[in-house]
């Protein structure tokens, strides 16, 4: 063993609390980063999907002969060709891999084809003759509720149900159907392994659950299917559910050739689940001092044709139906209905977004009725650590700085009185649509709360492996990097815990490591981060114990001033540690919705400043400032990126983003007609990160991805209400809602 003395004392580079540059940044900037869309393999075929043009129809016949007659077509598969389980589903396997007797939503896959090239595949898909007999589509959620077509009902009763308050406000609110609209559409490549198994490289937020569903529907052994993380152009919830995954594997095994499929944008709009549209009824009762004494809420979510995650989204909507406020008498009734509308499921905020628009609109109404400042009302009722959640009664154990969020928003300076005379800053933009004298300014506030991690007794875990390499260490994980920066933050955690500067993250396939769970519920930094931290800590302790050292750094193991084991010697050993991390357990709630349903919570608040041309119904969102509970910001630059991006998605839901439905048909499945915020629509954002120790996340970190999206929508709606004097009972707010109420 070589030894030398004189350790250079220093902090390793790129640890937690700093903002090291993304390892995938330069490849992405140069166009060299490989996305699922860019994958190719020798001898690859292209696939295309046949989709139902009806919201509901009986499938009387499918004739694939005309497609097979086209040169270069290798396979046309229908429901009859599904070798294993005929259905799939993230929580309940109720969705046919390919529709058999009946198509239940517009765009539902009916058949898939594989051909030598994409054009041939699409021609073949068009040539398949499907005999549809259109049936009456159930598209009205109220009617579905009456017919008891439901995925789940929720009933929450907490406290004395007879309590009444001196001041009562009631309201009905509606939230339109939002789309995640990730820039990269669904895409993937399946490669047969020549021994009956298959390797899948496809857009995903959760490769292990994809793999399980492929295994079931292909009737294979688990070891025959490997699902590989691949480059993804955004997710936001759209990639939790299977879409092309089983189809690709079926086609690859049927043809014996690698098969690739990429959805077009219009297909993508039908190929993934959406944010549930919601109908909310609220009754808030308070005493004259503004204390909430009773909240009643009714929540209706349209789950569409298949279950996806409707049960969990509904639960979240109901559990957070009162918001970050205390109240000891609560009644919430919720239902997620089954219709022939497009399936809805996960999108950033997962049920907490919809109800936030409802309860925050109510809090403003209550403040108005009480002639009270809206933030003061919120502060009086603020839910903090040690308080029971108004709905489930779960006592909040981790830090919840609701009052600090409110005080931070109060302290933020307002912009100069407007409007600006710059045309680009006026409602309607540079088209010189609005005149400054017709523009009024409004300021609105909203707070939101959401759980972090999976809920209701899910066994929520993540496995990570930390391995010593020649250059430092590698973190192996199946957790998916969707753009949020997990690839950076896991390395930071391992650097901090090991005390070294060189750590890389390797996203490995399902055969190499156990599940990391989904990249959703704001959970990976806490859960996969927790696994990484524990693995790195254990590895460091074992190494130091083995060599009787006291410090590990980039040079190796030190005992006092002496390098007792240089890195080359460490790297020659077989040093690795694998950890499965679980967060504090949760339970399913009882018949009254009571219980410890959640592992952690985060609170955030937003203040929106808007200019509105009331006559034209046009809105310019100038600023959305925020204070957010982050635990500890492991990577402040990434946290700010999540906040700014999340806020803009909230702004989108507030003023422009909606999938417009006509009898179950999406009328605007294109980027021309589904409006996404551009750089000119983006408000200025001042973000205050509130850091407090005490969460179980690594170094006290909390997930940060969803809170920015939850209350930003409600804050913008409140600001529009303040500027226009309109009630604003639905989002997105359309010009006619302002100009022609």
């Amino acid at each position, binding site marked *: 063993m070589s030894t030398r003395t004189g350790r250079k004392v220093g902090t390793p580079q790129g640890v937690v609390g700093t903002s090291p540059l993304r390892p995938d940044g*330069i490849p992405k900037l140069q166009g060299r980063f490989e996305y699922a869309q860019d994958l190719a393999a020798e001898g690859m075929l292209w696939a295309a999907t046949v989709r139902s043009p009806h919201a509901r129809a009986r499938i009387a016949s499918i004739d694939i002969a005309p497609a097979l007659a086209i040169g270069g077509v290798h396979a046309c598969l229908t429901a009859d060709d599904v070798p294993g389980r005929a259905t799939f589903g993230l929580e309940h396997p109720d969705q046919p891999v390919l529709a058999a007797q009946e198509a239940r939503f517009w765009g539902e896959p009916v058949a898939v084809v594989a051909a030598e090239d994409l*054009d041939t595949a699409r021609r073949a898909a068009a040539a398949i003759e499907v005999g549809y007999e259109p049936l009456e589509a159930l598209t009205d959620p109220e009617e579905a509720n009456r017919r008891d077509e439901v995925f789940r009902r929720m009933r929450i009763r907490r406290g004395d149900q007879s309590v009444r308050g001196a001041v009562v406000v009631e309201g009905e609110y509606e939230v339109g159907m939002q789309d995640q*609209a990730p*820039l990269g559409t669904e895409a993937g490549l399946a490669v047969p392994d020549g021994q009956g198994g298959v390797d899948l490289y496809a857009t995903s937020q959760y490769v292990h659950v994809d793999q399980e569903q492929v295994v079931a529907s292909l009737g294979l052994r688990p070891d025959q299917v490997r699902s590989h993380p691949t480059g993804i152009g955004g997710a936001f919830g759209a990639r939790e559910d299977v879409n092309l995954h089983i189809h690709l594997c079926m086609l690859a095994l049927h043809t014996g050739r690698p098969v690739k499929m990429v959805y077009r944008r219009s297909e993508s709009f039908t190929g993934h689940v959406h944010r549930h549209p919601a109908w909310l009824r609220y009754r808030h009762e308070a005493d004259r001092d503004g204390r909430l004494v009773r909240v009643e809420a009714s929540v209706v979510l349209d789950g569409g044709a298949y279950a996806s995650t409707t049960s969990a989204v509904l639960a979240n909507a109901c559990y957070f139906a009162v918001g970050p406020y205390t109240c000891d008498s609560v009644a919430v009734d919720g239902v997620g209905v089954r219709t022939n509308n497009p399936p809805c499921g996960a999108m950033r905020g997962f049920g907490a977004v919809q109800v936030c628009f409802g309860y925050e609109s109510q809090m403003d109404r209550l403040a108005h009725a009480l002639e009270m400042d809206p933030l003061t009302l919120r502060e009086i009722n603020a839910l903090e650590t040690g308080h029971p959640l108004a709905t489930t009664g779960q006592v909040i154990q981790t830090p919840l700085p609701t009052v600090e969020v409110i005080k931070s928003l109060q302290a933020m300076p307002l912009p100069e009185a407007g409007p600006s005379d710059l045309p680009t800053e006026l409602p309607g933009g540079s088209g010189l649509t609005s005149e400054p004298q017709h523009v009024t300014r409004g300021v609105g506030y909203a707070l939101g709360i959401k759980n972090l991690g999976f809920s209701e007794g899910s066994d929520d875990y993540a496995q990570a492996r930390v391995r010593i390499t020649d250059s430092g260490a590698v973190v192996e994980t199946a957790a998916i990097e969707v753009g949020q920066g997990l690839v950076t933050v896991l390395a930071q955690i391992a650097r901090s815990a090991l005390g070294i500067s060189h750590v890389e993250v390797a996203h490995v396939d399902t055969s190499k490591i156990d599940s990391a769970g989904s990249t959703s519920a704001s959970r990976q930094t806490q859960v996969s981060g927790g696994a990484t931290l524990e693995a790195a800590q254990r590895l460091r302790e074992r190494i130091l114990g083995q060599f009787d050292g006291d410090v590990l750094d980039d040079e190796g193991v030190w005992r006092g001033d002496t390098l007792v084991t240089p890195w080359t010697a460490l790297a020659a050993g077989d040093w690795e540690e694998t950890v499965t991390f679980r967060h504090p357990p949760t339970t399913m709630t009882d018949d009254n919705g009571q219980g410890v349903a959640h592992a952690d919570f985060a609170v955030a608040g937003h203040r929106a400043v808007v200019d509105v041309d009331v006559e034209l119904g046009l809105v310019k969102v100038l600023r959305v400032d925020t204070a957010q509970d982050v635990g500890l910001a492991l990577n402040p630059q990434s946290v700010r990126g999540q906040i700014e*991006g999340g806020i*803009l998605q909230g702004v989108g839901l507030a003023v422009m983003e909606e999938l417009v439905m006509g009898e179950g048909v999406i009328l605007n499945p294109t980027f021309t007609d589904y409006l996404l915020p551009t750089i000119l629509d983006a408000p200025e954002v001042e973000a205050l990160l509130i850091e407090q120790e005490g969460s179980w996340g690594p170094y006290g970190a909390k997930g940060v991805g969803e809170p920015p999206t939850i209350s930003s929508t409600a804050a913008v709606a409140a600001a529009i209400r303040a500027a226009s004097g309109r009630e604003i009972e639905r989002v997105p707010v359309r010009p006619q809602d302002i100009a022609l109420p």
Partner: protein
Amino acid sequence: MIVELTVNGEPVTARVNHPGSLLDLLRDDLGLPGSKSACEQGECGSCSVILDGALVCSCLVLAADAHGSAVTTVEGISEPGALHPVQEAMHRAGAVQCGFCTPGIVVAAADLFAVNPHPTATEIKEALAGNICRCTGYGAIVRALEGAEIVADR
């Protein structure tokens, strides 16, 4: 038909059998996947390239119409082995998340800086109004490019 054009300074010839776009030609026939396909209708700018000096959505240009043209894609926006100042600035500012819009934004921003080395925030926003980013909220992109002149001047 045979399409001859110059891509990133190199003359190339491709046999185009499809009625496809310049984007298809670049991605599928010429092996340049940096330009991204996201909306197929010229709404999102992910496929932005410079065609004979003009910033265009390559998804809206018929491949055959590019015959005889000079095209610069994200792969050719900087000198080999180097970063364009726009790329450097975006990297440092944290302006990249999922990265799918990023090549298009790099091309559009490089086009802006070629004619306006010191753009204001408003000019940056006007120049990138045709590029949709779903991840960043654009804040880091504006901050990056407001500072990019410093890098360009070095």
